[in-house]
């Protein structure tokens, strides 16, 4: 009468908690996940191929559309990778402004993550609070470059324009209230009994596995490895900033949640330092209007909100466009560890684990 064989089901690609078009083939024994195989590629647009057929200046708009919650971080990686390929030195003021906007973007991305992740688990209220603060950050982006999501914020060699008048007041107003907002989210979640039951001890990943699977970003730091590209391989003006790399040792969903919240506090610190110590000077380097590359290859890693975002570029002599462009997306590599993390757990824990991996399929499928 009762069947006891294993059951195969598809979670996604249209499942609301898979954040886009992620499809998981699950093999279940009752509620327990026996096997998990992610199937990706539903959002593949061939960004690498397109960028290889466009100039270095045109390529940047495609990076906006990869990880659409952190367009500024993608822009920064692209601009710096091209600058490294050509050997362009960027003015110090431009670097500071880039760093500041990148940290704003980290906060915005983490706020989207927090809201949607909490909503997946069932805490609907947090979403409304986090999107309120995210709106303020998007307003700052809008004031700076006119766009809210697909920003194309930077130019190769620096910035298109300096900070607009009045934005400093806007930023200071945000900084003044943001720490209180973080405390507000914490009152809703951190000691919440249901939240702790859903996240503590689920989605476990130890440090050895995390390193072997190449996992980076908050997921790696929650497993106890204090690796942050901003500290290990400083870029932009992170070498001049004073900040800490928050880590936890538990490696579960709750640890990842705490790490991301602590990261937002550190971002607040960095933004404050950038704004206070903003140097005077030009914001754009003197570069030729037409960039013709030489034979060179670079791999430029940056710490995007999700982890290490690396751009690999190969230049061809006299060419206007990159000969080869490859993106090392943090989500792509982190998602590979998902089967390891959900195996033996419940289906409901699978949702929580996808949430704390913070996958964005636009970047995974590219």
């Amino acid at each position, binding site marked *: 009468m009762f069947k006891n064989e294993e059951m195969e089901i598809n979670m996604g690609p249209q499942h609301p908690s898979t954040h886009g078009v992620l499809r998981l083939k699950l093999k279940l024994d009752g509620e327990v996940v026996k096997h998990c195989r992610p199937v*990706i*590629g539903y959002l*593949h647009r*061939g960004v*690498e*191929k*397109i960028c*290889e*057929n466009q100039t270095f200046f045109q390529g940047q708009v495609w990076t906006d559309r990869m990880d659409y919650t952190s367009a500024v971080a993608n822009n920064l990686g692209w601009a710096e990778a091209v600058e*490294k*390929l*050509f*050997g*362009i*030195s*960027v003015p110090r003021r431009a670097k500071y402004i880039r760093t500041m906007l990148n940290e704003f973007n980290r906060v915005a991305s983490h706020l989207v993550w927090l809201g949607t992740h909490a909503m997946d688990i069932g805490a609907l209220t947090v979403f409304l609070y986090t999107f309120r603060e995210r709106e303020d950050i998007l307003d700052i982006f809008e004031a700076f470059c006119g766009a809210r999501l697909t920003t194309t914020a930077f130019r190769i*060699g620096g910035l298109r324009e300096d900070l607009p008048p009045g934005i400093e007041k806007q930023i200071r107003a945000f900084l003044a209230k943001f720490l209180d907002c973080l405390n507000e989210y914490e009152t809703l979640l951190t000691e919440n009994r249901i939240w702790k039951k859903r996240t503590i001890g689920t989605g476990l990943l130890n440090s050895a596995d995390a*390193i*072997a*699977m*190449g996992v980076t970003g908050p997921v790696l730091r929650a497993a106890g*490895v204090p*690796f942050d590209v901003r500290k*290990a*391989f400083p870029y932009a003006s992170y070498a001049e900033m004073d900040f800490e790399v928050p880590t936890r040792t538990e490696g579960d969903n709750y640890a990842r949640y705490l790490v991301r919240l602590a990261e937002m506090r550190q971002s607040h610190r960095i933004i404050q330092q950038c704004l206070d110590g903003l140097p005077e000077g030009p914001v754009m*380097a*003197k*570069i*030729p209007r037409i960039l013709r590359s*030489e*034979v*060179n*290859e*670079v*791999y430029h*890693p940056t710490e995007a909100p999700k982890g*290490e975002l*690396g751009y*690999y570029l*190969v*230049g*061809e*002599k006299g*060419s206007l466009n990159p*000969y*080869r462009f*490859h993106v*090392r997306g943090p989500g*792509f*590599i982190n998602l*590979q560890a998902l089967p390891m993390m959900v195996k033996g757990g419940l289906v409901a824990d699978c949702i929580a684990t996808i949430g704390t991996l913070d996958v964005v399929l636009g970047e995974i*499928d*590219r």
Partner: protein
Amino acid sequence: MATDKDPIQEDRYVYDLKAAPNRQVTLPKTVPLPGLKTYLEEQAAAAAAEEAKWQKALADFETAKAKAEAEGKDAPKKPVRPVPKPDTNDLKFPAPAAATDPDLLHLQEVLGAKVEEIFQQAGELTCQVAKEAILEVLTLCRDDAALGYEMLADETATHYPAAKDFAFSVVYHLTSIRRSKRLRLRILVPEGFEPETAVPVYPTANWLEREIWDMLGIRFRNHPDMTRILCPEDWEAHALRKEYPTRGLGQRDIDFRQDRSGVLMRMAMEKAGNMGINLAPPRAE
């Protein structure tokens, strides 16, 4: 708008690359493989060419002078060697330099003839090794106490159709978390060669190598799951090869703005039905 071809009569649906001459791509003519040896050769060749040009200008001047003297005319102007204009841009091309980093020297010392080239460029270390030895080199990089590259950050490949004795370069970007260091390993692979998989050493390579197979068509030996990852399983070509066009392969070539009556759309749907694709909305059973 009048066109000389009737879009309805003509077969506008192109799946076969060879049947679409307008979508043939121009293949690259050079092999932009970064390296110290090729860079120095190119620099020497460019300097020699410039010197030859100058010598020719001098010789021309001498003959013109002798001719003018013989004819009793004014002597021609002596040529001036052109001085390159100083570059005022904030731009300095990072030229490849000889390896001085202890990691690269250590690799060369341990591996000997298996190392084909080592150099540094733009602050990045590159070590090109023999394609058969890649698994051994990766294991060494991970386990050697002096190296200790625990993490594979990235693995990707580049297609070089203009190269003679290889078709692809496969690059491995290694990260040492403990020492905050990065290293690039490179192998050169001819068409059809299957390099050994890196999965036993770095499990990260699983999906990265699947992506390389999907996008460039390099198969890896002993890989646990050599299937496509981003494209569907029945996709025929490999998109990041240089002969693959940016348009073509299944793309509709119909201007729907001119398709008021929907004739072209209907034709496309019929054609798609022939291809085994169902574009029509599902009917209630």
